[in-house]
């Protein structure tokens, strides 16, 4: 199957082309084209996954298939290449399976939308970009697909482009990611300068042998700027909440399997670079940990169901980034995998709710549990998994991150880092459980809203929910400390670290998660403590959190008051100074001509006078030696 692996990203782009050029007017044909292509990719991805695990292809010894793409003799060779190892094959499976389910879901969700066909074309383009990014064998190709992911998100976030808010959000997403790509590009160029190649395998040999660690740290941090933007880490996270302007299936795709996962994947793929620069690794861990807490605090007070989930994503990604920063790509990728399933589930569930009640404000919902049984059950499973309740998928992957955090001190040789990162992790776990169950108690179990006619969504929407719920329950079993030959035996860097069961963390994290749920129940379920009173009591903090720490406002201010003013200054300089000098030169010449014009009077006597004067002067000049004046 591996020899067909290149088809995995190619099939969806074929679907894209077919839809755009041929079937745009036939909605169901377009949807089927996209879904069939995606199913093809999924089948190949499963085949590749099975083959990788049955033939002992490891991260150290992957399979590469390459064709020449761009060559400058003696200076540059870029291949269009496919890299198959456990890391990429797991990711390919996650992306194809989730994209497949989301496409099925979209048939119901997007029904009746005038852009139905185009939507499926864009979903296919998005899948191609993400799959290409995952499968490529060198930084350059990865960067190209990385940017195409940016394009696809631009098209999908701005899908309702007749709404200003949507086109603003899509523009913001693209530009924020461009800033990240700028750093990524610089880092990538440095790698090429230092090692003369973009190829991951060649770099994994060359980088550890490189002596200048300071330079490597700079390069690693530059590359990391890319994931900061793509995986919505502080301070380039601002695009993520706005990206909710896209249709809900898009949010699910962006937040679960594509786009934001790309950043974490790149960290894992290029881990040799970060591993060789310990300072960079620590900074990555700090940014990840900070983002996790930062986003969770914002998530506590949001009212919009999709925004709560958005900040939850940012927070969970922070978790993964932190795990990788603390040296465990196993923990990061494991959480990425389980998170992909339950977060896709939660977004699609939210979409199902929005589809039914036509509002996104959780306080305008209520009592949905009675009306939408499947949605409620699956959403509950997703939330429990996200909160990390035993034995759901999120429990196992979160535990592995917490164990990694506990051992952080050993990696950096600073003992207090372990307890510090563990505390951060537990704090996030508490807040996660709280905000998810705040959502559930308010929206699903609160009192029914008068006049709201909510119905369960059609089967095409609930079917993916059920499948994803199954994954949200069981996906964690591939990587528990009690599983032999599981996730950690395949996806690792250097040597596999098979997780040891750490009962202290298991029990403690469960207590913390239950505490979060209990706390949410007291406030929003039983209403023993009034949420309004709390908000009034801590109004300054509440406002600060609700407004996302005013970071968007600060950026907007910078753009309007600094950046645009500089641009205006340049325009003024160009028109007034640069052009002024050129025009002034022309005017000067004309002025000169205008003055000289007066000599040409056309009056014969004047001319005769000038001629006579000239003759006299010349005669005198010639006569000077004769007269002996000088």
């Amino acid at each position: 199957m591996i020899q067909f692996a290149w088809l995995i990203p190619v099939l969806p782009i074929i679907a894209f082309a077919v839809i755009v050029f041929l079937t745009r007017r036939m909605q169901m044909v377009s949807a089927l084209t996209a879904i069939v292509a995606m199913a093809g990719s999924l089948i190949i991805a499963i085949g590749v996954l099975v083959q990788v695990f049955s033939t002992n292809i490891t991260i150290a010894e992957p399979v590469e298939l390459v064709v020449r793409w761009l060559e400058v003799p003696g200076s540059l060779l870029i291949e269009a290449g496919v890299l198959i190892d456990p890391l990429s094959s797991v990711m390919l499976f996650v992306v194809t399976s989730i994209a497949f389910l989301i496409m099925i879901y979209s048939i119901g969700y997007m029904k009746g939308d005038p852009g139905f066909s185009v939507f499926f074309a864009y979903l296919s383009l998005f899948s191609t970009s993400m799959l290409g990014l995952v499968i490529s064998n060198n930084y350059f190709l990865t960067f190209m697909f990385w940017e195409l992911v940016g394009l696809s998100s631009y098209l999908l976030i701005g899908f309702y482009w007749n709404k200003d808010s949507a086109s603003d959000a899509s523009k913001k997403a693209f530009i924020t990611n461009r800033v990240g790509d700028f750093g990524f590009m610089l880092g990538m160029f440095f790698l090429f300068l230092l090692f003369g190649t973009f190829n991951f395998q060649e770099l994994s040999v060359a980088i550890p042998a490189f002596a200048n660690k300071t330079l490597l740290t700079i390069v690693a941090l530059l590359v990391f700027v890319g994931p900061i933007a793509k995986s919505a880490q502080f301070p380039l996270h601002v695009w993520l909440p706005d990206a909710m302007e896209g249709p809900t299936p898009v949010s699910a795709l962006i937040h679960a399997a594509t786009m934001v996962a790309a950043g974490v994947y790149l960290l894992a793929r290029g881990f040799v670079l970060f591993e060789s620069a310990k300072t960079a690794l620590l900074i990555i861990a700090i940014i990840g940990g900070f983002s996790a807490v930062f986003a969770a605090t914002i998530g506590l007070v949001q009212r919009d169901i999709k925004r709560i989930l958005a900040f939850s994503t940012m927070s969970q990604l922070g978790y993964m980034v932190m795990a990788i920063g603390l040296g465990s790509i196993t923990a990061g990728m494991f959480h990425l995998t389980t998170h992909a399933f339950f977060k896709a589930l939660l977004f699609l569930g939210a979409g199902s709710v929005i589809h039914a009640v036509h509002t996104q404000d959780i306080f305008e919902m209520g009592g949905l549990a009675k009306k939408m049984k499947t949605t409620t059950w699956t959403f509950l499973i997703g939330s429990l998994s996200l909160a990390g309740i035993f034995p759901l998928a999120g429990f196992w992957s979160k535990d592995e991150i917490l164990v990694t955090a506990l051992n952080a001190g050993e990696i950096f040789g600073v003992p207090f880092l372990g307890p510090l990162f563990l505390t951060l992790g537990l704090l996030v776990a508490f807040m996660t459980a709280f905000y998810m169950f705040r959502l559930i108690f308010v929206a699903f179990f609160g009192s029914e809203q008068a006049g709201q006619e909510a119905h369960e969504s059609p089967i095409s929407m609930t079917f993916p929910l059920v499948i994803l719920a199954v994954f949200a329950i069981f996906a964690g079993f591939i990587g528990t400390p009690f599983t032999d030959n599981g996730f950690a035996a395949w996806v690792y860097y250097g040597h596999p670290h098979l997780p040891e069961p750490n009962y202290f963390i298991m029990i403690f994290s469960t207590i913390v998660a239950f505490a979060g749920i209990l706390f949410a129940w007291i406030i929003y379920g039983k209403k023993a403590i009034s949420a309004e009173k709390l908000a009034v009591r801590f109004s300054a903090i509440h406002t600060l959190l609700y407004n996302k720490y005013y970071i968007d406002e600060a950026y907007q201010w910078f753009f309007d008051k600094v950046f645009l003013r500089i641009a205006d200054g340049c325009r003024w300089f160009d028109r007034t100074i640069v052009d002024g000098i050129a025009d002034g030169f022309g005017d000067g010449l004309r002025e000169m001509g205008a003055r000289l014009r007066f000599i040409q009077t056309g009056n014969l006597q004047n001319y005769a006078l000038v001629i006579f004067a000239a003759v006299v002067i010349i005669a005198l000049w010639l006569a000077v030696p004769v007269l002996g004046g000088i």
Partner: protein
Amino acid sequence: MDGFPILLSIVLAPIIGALIIILIPEKDEMVIKITAALATFVSLVLSLYAFITYDKSVGGLQFLQDFIWVERFGINLSFGVDGISLPLVLLTAIVIFTGVFASWDMKNRSKEFFVFLLVLVAGVFGVFVSRDLFWFYLFFEVAVIPMYVLIGVWGSTRKEYAAMKLTIYLLVGSAFALIGIIALYLYAKGQLGYGTFDIATLSTVNFDIAFQKFAFFLMMIGFGFLVPMWPLHTWSPDGHVAAPTAVSMLHAGVLMKLGGYGLIRAGVFLFPIGAKFWAPLIAVLCIVNVVYGAMVAMVQKDLKFVIGYSSVSHMGYVLLGIASMNYLSLDGAVAQMFAHGIMTALFFALVGNVYHKAHTREIAAFGGLAHQMPRVAAGFLIGGLASLGLPGLNNFVAEALIFLGSWRVEKILFGFLHFRVLSILAIFGVVVTAIYVLRVVQKVFFGPRNPKWDHLTDAKGVEMVPIVILVGVLLLFGIFPSLLIDTINVGIEPLVAKIAAAVEIGGIF
């Protein structure tokens, strides 16, 4: 097709077309347009043929043709193309062919319009295929003069001012180049014992360092006007804005490339030592082009001015490629000339389409135009994405090569400024570009439907010809870049060898 005068035919086809059009009565507009389309189609097919059959394993100048002209002065009408000029010939052919279709709605004195347009393009073809510096110069002048008439008569916004400004700037520039060419001729005559304008022969002459500095300076200023290099650039946005659609396409798409081409062919190739001396100056100025051009583009109100300044910004990348003087960067410079030519032609074709129907180009007047003109919007978005360097489109490859090449330069300017800082600033240019491009796309095409523009019809029929061809080319060479780059490699290789052989001297800074 052995022995068929292919390059001569490429140059002559538009001239013959122009002669035929002169004989056609003015009222037969359709016949005039079809003739123009056919004439340019002949050039296009022949250019494509040359591009495909050019033997990359042999390299060098091919499809040679010589006609002795003024033997006493060593002036010959001699043609030939290599890996540098061939892509630019193809570019010219694509742009003029699509440009004719973009002018399909020309009603006012269309006969004279097409005559001048075809003469102009014959001049441009001539520049690219000439192996003789005298003819190189002559063809250039042939291209400039029709431009004056085309803008002055068929233009818009301050057209007389713009036409005059453009012509004077270009003539001043060419005067510098002419002095350089004459000095070169005389110097070479002293060395060789006979006069010649043949570029290949001239390149074998050993010019001393002082002369190289002097001659390259003249070429740099002369062709710098054309590129345009900051601060010699203000003619170009004004010219773009005033010119009618097809002329804008040619002007930004091809005419500016004469500058980059001249700088490489008559500058770096003949005077590598001089180029090494002046390269730091070009490098510093081109960063001003890139960043400042993009900043100015950000705050423009007229759609064409945005594209005009974006051209200033993008041509800065070409200059950076030339100033970095290595294989990758020079490859990128030529590729960027090609890619930018196609992209900007696409932009002007689309803006022309909108302007022709809406009679305004003011960005603030639009909004939600994608409702009425979805195809134009899609085309504009693709052009915009090419402009901001999106992978999968031709411009990305060109810019990446330039960046990679400039990244390798280890020069220190002014004793403290590493060349890489300039590269970083240039790369930052792509962020600024993304901002202004997406802002314009949003302001013009996205947002709620504006009933004011309901009378606008989307591009269709003949109007789709330029959009489809130009987008197709951007995608083709974006996805399969070696189709283009392999040819350019063959042209750059001898140039790089010459640079490597040149004596290393310190730069001006």
